């Protein structure tokens, strides 16, 4: 089994290095094929490991090589395949294989085709390290690795110029009604990277605290010893680790980077900013569940924050017309759901939702990619419409994914999302439950708002070549659809494997304890399904009747502007953090650096140079003068000798 582990881990790295060899050369189709093939190999190896863990209940644990060995400190490069990591591995490799194949079609005309695949496979490798490591140090390496690859992929089209900031809600890069997701891809990439660094600092502090108090970073040793620490220390560790998770999973107040990361190519959004990397925070909480179980108050805070983010993001998706941002907000909202489950101690439910969400959200993004590809990179859903006739397969797949996201029986989202609501109700967190319940309705509504605007109704574009909004929509390549089909299928059936999943995962994670009668349970399921269905029904019926929603009525009201401007979060960040920081940096540059440090360094150089210039007068070439200088020199040396001999 160990060889499968190594194959699963290193196949993406080989692919990445191979594609990187051709990084600066024009498009070569085989880089895409080779990386996809190696990802497929990794997928097969992961499935093999899943089968092994599922059937035997054993875990695979290898110590590849020593890394840091100093005195009593021993941090190896160790990898573990247990019930949790094997689930993550299968999810990551499945989604990434399909995204790789999809990208061959999506990046078809891009001149940096090879570079794209190098980054994408490097990302998968980092993600595999993150989920497979058997210690916090390895996890942190993967954590930073995915951050780096995310930076490279968000800023993939780094050559695009900055967008002017504007107060016009249709043009401002801060608004979800404009076609721009951020000021520029480079800006969005840096924003994501820097925001994550801030959160990672807290995570590092958490890791240092663990190491300081326990002297190890190995999961099993840490979890065995964590109970012996005093309560305050564990609370501090849990909080710092969670702040790290907040950054990676874009929880409030680190949420802004995720929506802006939509500047990257759409397959990247599907893989990194929906299915895998952003769930790393959830994975951390699940992995460190022994720590979070000891401090339920931190867990409760996590759940509250998760519920807040769930509705906070879902409400923004209600008015957005930027297609990718709608899906991004939906991702954020679903991450909130996962944190509610994890915070309330239902770790495997969080993992379950993570897996189902990965399938339907990635395919939703890939569908959005198809639409944008067909519509010449148009991103405004109000400029689409009626596309079902031109791209029926994409329409079907996206509808399936949206139904799954809304949580309708018997698709994947139903099983996992419903379970989270049950957990919230069972933990007597009724306010959280109510928030999540409303969010479920909103989720259903905005998902179908998107589907209706894009695929149904009248065509808001023109067939006429002379027109400004001329479009020539067409279905994408058949292999791209073929790559999306497995994910769409999983979006339908993933929930059906709940029973074997529960059996496997509870060997590692704590079992669920919900003390509600089956009567209440059925009522909960019914009313949750009811609100989801009514959300869909409302979206469909109103669109069929009027062809639009409330935007015309509401567009001048404050609440609409508030949502469209993302609760003025970008403005707030701009004015409270960016501008003062810029002013501070300018002050340091102009006053401290140039006037103080530069002046000293320059002064030394100028002094020496000036001295040399003045000293050339001595070099007159006149022997008599040279002799005089020599005499003066001897005289000075004599004085020095006398002076210093007297000093002693």
């Amino acid at each position: 089994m160990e060889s499968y582990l190594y194959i699963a881990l290193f196949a993406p790295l080989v692919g990445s290095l191979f594609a990187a060899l051709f990084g600066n050369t024009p498009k070569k189709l085989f880089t895409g094929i080779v990386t996809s093939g190696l990802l497929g190999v990794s997928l097969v190896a992961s499935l093999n490991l899943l089968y092994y863990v599922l059937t035997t209940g054993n875990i695979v644990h290898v110590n590849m090589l020593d890394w840091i060995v100093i005195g009593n400190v021993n941090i190896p490069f160790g990898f573990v395949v247990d019930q949790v990591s094997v689930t993550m591995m299968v999810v990551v490799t499945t989604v990434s294989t399909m995204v790789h194949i999809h990208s061959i079609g999506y990046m078809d005309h891009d001149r940096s085709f090879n570079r794209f695949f190098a980054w994408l496979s490097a990302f998968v490798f980092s993600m595999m390290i993150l989920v497979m490591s058997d210690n916090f140090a390895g996890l942190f390496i993967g954590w930073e690795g995915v951050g780096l690859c995310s930076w490279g992929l968000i800023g993939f089209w780094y050559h695009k110029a900055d967008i002017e900031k504007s107060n016009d809600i249709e043009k401002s890069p801060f608004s979800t009604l404009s076609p721009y997701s951020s000021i520029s891809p480079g800006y969005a990439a840096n924003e994501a990277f820097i925001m994550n660094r801030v959160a990672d600092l807290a995570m590092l502090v958490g890791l240092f605290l663990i190491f300081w108090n326990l002297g190890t970073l190995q999961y099993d040793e840490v979890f065995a010893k964590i109970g012996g620490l005093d309560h305050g220390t564990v609370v501090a560790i849990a909080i710092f680790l969670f702040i790290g998770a907040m950054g990676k999973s874009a929880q409030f107040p680190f949420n802004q980077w995720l929506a802006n990361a939509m500047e990257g190519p759409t397959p990247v959004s599907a893989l990194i900013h929906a299915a895998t990397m952003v769930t790393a925070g959830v994975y951390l909480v699940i992995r460190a569940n022994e720590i979070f179980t000891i401090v339920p108050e931190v867990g409760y805070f996590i759940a509250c924050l998760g519920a807040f983010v769930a509705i906070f993001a879902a409400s923004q998706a209600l008015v957005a017309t930027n297609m990718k941002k709608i899906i991004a907000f939906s991702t954020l909202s679903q991450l909130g759901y996962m944190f509610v489950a994890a915070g309330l101690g239902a770790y495997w439910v969080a993992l379950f939702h993570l897996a189902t969400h990965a399938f339907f959200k990635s395919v939703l993004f890939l569908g959005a990619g198809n639409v944008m590809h067909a519509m010449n990179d148009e991103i405004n859903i109000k400029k689409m419409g009626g596309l079902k006739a031109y791209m029926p397969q994409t329409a079907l797949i996206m509808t399936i994914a949206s139904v799954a996201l809304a949580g309708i029986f018997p698709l994947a989202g139903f099983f996992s999302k419903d379970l989270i609501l049950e957990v919230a109700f069972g933990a007597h967190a009724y306010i959280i439950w109510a928030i999540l319940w409303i969010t479920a309705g909103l989720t259903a509504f905005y998902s179908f708002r998107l589907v209706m605007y894009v695929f149904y109704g009248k065509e808001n574009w023109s067939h006429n070549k002379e027109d400004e909004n001329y479009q020539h929509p067409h279905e994408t390549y058949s292999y791209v659809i073929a790559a999306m089909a497995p994910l769409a299928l999983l979006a339908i059936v993933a929930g059906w494997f709940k029973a074997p999943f529960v059996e496997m995962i509870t060997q590692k994670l704590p079992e669920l304890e919900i003390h509600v009668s089956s009567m209440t349970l059925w009522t909960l399921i019914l009313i949750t399904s009811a609100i989801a269905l009514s959300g869909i029904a409302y979206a469909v019926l109103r669109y069929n009747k009027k062809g639009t929603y409330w935007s015309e009525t509401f567009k001048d009201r404050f609440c609409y502007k508030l949502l469209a401007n993302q609760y003025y979060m970008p403005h707030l960040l701009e004015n409270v953090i960016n501008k003062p920081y810029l002013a501070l940096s300018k002050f340091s540059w102009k006053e401290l650096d140039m006037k103080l440090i530069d002046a000293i360094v320059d002064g030394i150089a100028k002094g020496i140079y000036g001295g040399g210039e003045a000293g050339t007068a001595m070099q007159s070439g006149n022997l008599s003068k040279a002799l005089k200088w020599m005499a003066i020199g001897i005289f000075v040396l004599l004085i020095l000798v006398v002076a210093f001999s007297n000093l002693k």
Partner: protein
Amino acid sequence: MIGITLNDYLILSTILFMIGFYGTIRRKNLLMLFFSTEIMLNAVNIGLAAISKFHGDLTGQMFAFFIIAIAASEVAVGLGLLILWFKRHNTIDLDSLQSMKG
């Protein structure tokens, strides 16, 4: 009568050295420069011989001989060069010797 002590010799030596030194610095005539250098060398010789005598050690006098020999050969070479210079430039003024000016 007070005998001549080592100090007197050394004072003589210093006075001679200072005269030579002054000449080296002030004189512009190359020939005079040689004279001044000779005075300085002989001032040192007096010092060496005197100390050697008063300490009863012959090493100092030996050194004085060496210096005389080297000074003689140096002057021989130097005067040769000087004559060559005079033939070419018709002057032995130090200020005319400036071909090394940077």
